[in-house]
Structures are given as C-alpha cells and as structure tokens.
C-alpha cells in the first residue's frame, strides 16, 4: 500500500474513532464524582427514610414491613398535607406574580429596575429563618407596624393567625426575589426587538404582555415556580416560627415527631418525609409534563 494511502487510512481511523470516544469520555468522567455524590446522598437518604417509614429499620426489635407509621396520624396527616399544599401553592402563586412583575421592571433598565434588581439580589441569600424572624418582628401584634400605627389591640392576627398570612408573606417575599431574578435573566437573553416587533405589528402593552412577554417567560416562570413550591412545601422553619401550633404543616409535624422524646415516633416522622418527598416529586413531574407541551421548551 502506498505511504500516502497508509497515512490516509490512519488519519481516517483517527477521525472515525475521535468523535465516538475522545470528546465524550472526558465529559462522562468529569460528571462521575457529582453523579456518585448525588446518588449516595439523595438515593441513599431517600431509601433509608423509606425503609424506616415502612418498619424495615426499627430502633429496637425485628424489621417488619408495615404501613403503621403512615396511618398513626391519619387525620392530622391529611389536614397537614392540605395545609402545606395551601401555604406552598398560595405563596408560590404570589411569588410568581410579584417575581414576574419585578422581572418586567428590572428589564426596563431604568433606576427603579436597578433598585428592584439590587433588592432581589440582597433578598435571595438571606436565610429563611432570618426572614421569618424579621417578618415576625414586623407583622406581629407587638411588632413594628402595630407599634407605628398604634393599633396593638385591633391589630389582625397576621402572625400565628388562622390564615397563615405571615408564613405566606415570608415565602412569597423570598421566593418572588428568586423568581424575579430567574425570569429577568431569561428575558435578558431575549432581544428587546421582540417587544418592538410586536408593538409594530399592532400589539398594545397588555397584548404584548399576554402574547409575547408571558409566553417567552413561561418556561423560566414554571421552573422557578416549581422550585419555589417544592421549597415552600418542604421547609419547616418559617411555618414553625410564624404559624399556629395546630394544625401543623407536614414539615413542622415531621420535625416535631423526629424530635419527640418517644424514639418510636421516628418512623412516623420518616413517613411524613416520604409523603413530602413524593408530593414534591409529583409537582416536579407535573411541571416537566407542562414544560414539554410548551413549544419554546421543545
């Protein structure tokens, strides 16, 4: 075989082998540590909690498959699940509304947009427990606002009241900053010309909002909204600090049972954890199913 053909063949082999092996392998190898870590922590943790809730990892006695932990607080569990869903759903809805509005203001690029962006950026890293404490100090009947307005007697039960207003307010405030920044980040990658094009095609402000800006923001809004919902549904500190003692949202109930003096309550806490995780996973799957229907996502 002539030398040039040999070189060509070798070159061809390199080319053929290259795309299938060389560029892919380093990427896979780089992802391995993260995949292993996530699998061990999330998968292992979830499996242990599920096993404990099903009586397969008792503190004392023989392992025995049982659904007793799920039925031990049947009524309270349902009420707690409904309450958690209501708090998380309402606060997420408010967060999306406020966050989307904040994103539109940020996108205007004027001084008020920069102010909103700065406030949102400051709000996001603030821990929820600090936010909850601040909300309590602001909205409680002995809080700052009640003192400023001198209405301690007639001040509504915002903190610890029957409507969980302070809890929803805190989640909506914190998560709206998150939603706002995510949506603004997405809109920033879309040219302003889309809005100008729509305007020149005859769309007024409201129609541009409905027919252009909202659809363009929808994937980001759904993703950030789902994250906000799952967080609000699964975190305990805000409801624990600003809510009523009874009924309890699921995370507060799980925390109480886990910290109970009776160690036999731990499977019940684990069962609530499993239910919380299942609902969160369901919410993520529903969001993903909706996202798949959006042409922009496809």
């Amino acid at each position, binding site marked *: 075989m002539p030398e040039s053909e040999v070189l060509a063949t070798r070159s061809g082999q390199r080319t053929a082998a290259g795309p299938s092996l060389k560029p892919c392998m380093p990427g896979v190898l780089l992802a391995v540590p993260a995949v292993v870590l996530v699998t061990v922590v999330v998968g292992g943790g979830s499996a242990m909690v599920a096993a404990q809730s099903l009586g397969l990892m008792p503190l004392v006695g023989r392992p025995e498959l049982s659904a007793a932990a799920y039925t031990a607080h049947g009524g309270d569990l349902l009420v707690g699940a409904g309450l958690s869903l209501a708090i998380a759903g309402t606060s997420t809805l408010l967060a999306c509304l406020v966050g989307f509005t904040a994103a539109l203001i940020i996108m205007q690029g004027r001084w008020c947009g920069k102010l909103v962006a700065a406030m949102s950026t400051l709000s996001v890293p603030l821990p929820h427990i600090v936010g909850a404490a601040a909300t309590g100090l602001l909205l409680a009947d002995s809080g700052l606002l009640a003192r400023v307005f001198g209405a301690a007697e007639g001040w509504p039960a915002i903190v610890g009241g029957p409507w969980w207003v302070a809890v929803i307010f805190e989640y909506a405030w914190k998560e709206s900053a998150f939603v706002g920044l995510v949506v603004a980040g997405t809109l920033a990658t879309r*040219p302003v*010309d*889309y809005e*100008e*094009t*729509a*305007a*020149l*095609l*005859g*769309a*007024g402000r409201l*129609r541009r909002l409905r*027919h*252009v800006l909202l*659809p*363009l923001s*929808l994937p980001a809004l759904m993703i950030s909204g789902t994250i906000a919902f799952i967080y609000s549904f699964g975190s305990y500190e805000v409801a624990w600090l600003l809510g009523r003692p009874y009924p309890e949202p699921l995370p507060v109930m799980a925390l109480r049972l886990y910290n109970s003096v009776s160690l036999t309550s731990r499977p019940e806490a684990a069962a609530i954890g499993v239910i919380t995780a299942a609902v969160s996973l369901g919410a993520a799957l529903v969001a993903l199913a909706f996202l798949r229907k*959006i*042409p*922009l996502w*496809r």
Partner: protein
Amino acid sequence: MRQGLELQGLSKSFRGAPAPALDEVSLSLAPGSCTAVLGPSGSGKSTLLRTVAGLEIPDRGSVLLNGQDLAAVRPERRGMVMVFQRPLLFPHLNVRDNVAFPATIRGVPRRRARTDAESYLELVHMKGTGKRAVTDLSGGQQQRVAIARGLAARPAVLLLDEPFNALDPELRSAMHDLLAHVRKKLHPTILMVTHDHDEAAAVADRIALLHAGRLLQHDPIDALYTRPATLQVSRLMGGTNEIPGTVKDGMHYSVLGAHALPADQQWPDGPATLIIRQEHLLLVPNHSSGSLAVVTGLRSRGPRRLITVTAAGVDLHAEVTPSHALSIGDSVRVQLPTAALAAVGADTAPDTPPLTSPDWKVLA
C-alpha cells in the same frame, strides 16, 4: 391632504454622541413607492427608520402619514411594520401563528386569522410550512415568514431594516425577487435601509443617500449615479473620476480639454468638477480620438477589470471587460461620452477628502 409618507426636518441626537444621528432630514415617499435609504455605517439609517416607526422620539421635526402628524401616535397605532435584519419570529409560536399574530391581537377569530395567514405564506412562497416550528426554518425561510407576518398586519408603510443583510448572495437575490412580487401584488409603501448599492438599485425606485445624519440626495437611482448633487454623493455612490475645471456655456474646460455637458440640464458657469462613472469612461485604441492616456494600474474584478490611466496628469479609472488586452505602460485614448457627464460646482465641496485611488470596497 398629501398622500404617502412625509418626513419634515427630523433631527435626533443621542446623549453622549458627538454628532446628531439625524440632522434636519426631510423626505417624501409616494404611496406604493419603494425608497432605499443608503449610507455608510453610522450614517443614521436605522435611527431614521426607528424614528419613523415611533420607536425613537425625534428632537425636532415630524412624521406625517397621509397628512396626519404621527407625533402623538404610539408605534402600535401607526400602521407601520418593521422587518429587522434578524427575522425575530416569535419562538413560542409556529410559522402559521406567527403570521396570524397581527390578526390575533386585533381580535380576529383564530380560525380566520390562520386562514388569512396561509394566504400570506403562499404569497411569500412558504405554503405548507404553517405547522412547522420557526426554529426548523433556514435563515432565508425565516425572513420570508417575517415579511409575510409584516404584510399580514396590512401596514400602510413597510419598514425594512437591512432585512437581507445576513443572507448569502443567492438567497438575497431570491428575496429581491420576492419583494418585487409583493410590491406587484400589494403595492405597499416601502422604506428600506441598506448599505448595499446593488440591493438598493435592485429593489427601490428611489434612493435617499444619508451621511452623518444628513440627507445628501433623494432621487431616482440613475440620477444618484449619473447626476450626483455633490462630490460627496458621487464618492459615496462609488464614483472615482473627478476632473477639476470650469463650466462655461454648458461646456466643461479642464486639462483634458473641452467637454460638452448634457443639454437636458442647466449647468451654472464657474469652477466645477467634471464627474463620470468608471463604468461609462471609454478606453479606445491609440489611433482613435480622445485624450491620450497611459495605463498605470490593472485590477481584476471577476468578470470586469478596473483600469487606472493617467491623462494629462489626471488619474482616471475605467471598468472594462477582460477583452481589453491592456498592460501597464500601454497608451490608450480616453473618451468621455457626453450623456454620462455631470459637473458639480465648487460650492458643493464635500466634507470628505478626494479619493487618491478607487475605493475598492465601495466598488465591490
């Protein structure tokens, strides 16, 4: 009431910019006409279009459509549509719904809006693509859909901001044909921005030449090439031959001798520069009549050749076919056909310095 689009003394400055983007621009467009706004980068072409569309507010001047001042009219109510360099099709809508967008937001029932959209897609030769995602289309197809969407809004004026700039030459030529087809069918008034001379000549009836925010000339295409108002216009249109001299009684006198100017126009007496396009300058054999010249430069331009000759100390440039077998140092005669001549007075001296050699980029 005057019909069509009229711009009166439009001026626009941007904060921090050393010079105004638009400086007293006045322009009239007849209904159904197509005017190309031509000019180098930064000359204010896009600002002019955006100001007409209402996306920029002018510092002074007004935009009138069929006699109505549009100063207080929002962009969505001006009856104007702009097609940008990027098609900007809405990514959340398919092809058909993009074209149906103007009707949908007008409140037309969706079914009828979609039926109308199909007819506009057919007009731009995109029939049968309605259900496709816009991301599945090529750049040229997307621009066709963008034009269909613009036409579906039934605008009084179609504003085109370098819409074919990103397309390859073949596709661009096809889009020019499409625009001619659309003009024939719908007769929209078109104001199109471009920096491509050939494109302007291919699609427009008239050219408005803009430089540094000022309108230099607004005339039919031939006039800009053969009867430029100033030396600057001549240079911006790619003209390279300038022979200083004097005009007296319709004749131009220079070192190349006396040349009669076209009789269809009055030529004021006084110092003037004789202008002739390089395409019109004739190089003939030595034994013919004309000014004696020596070939000093040759450059191939594909099917054409650009020849530089020096006659009586003046450098002249001629674009000829390759059949002219010339070499550097050859002697030739130069003829300046009367019909192709124009004289520009000394009072119209340009801001830009004269060219010492052909501007090859402009010629390209």
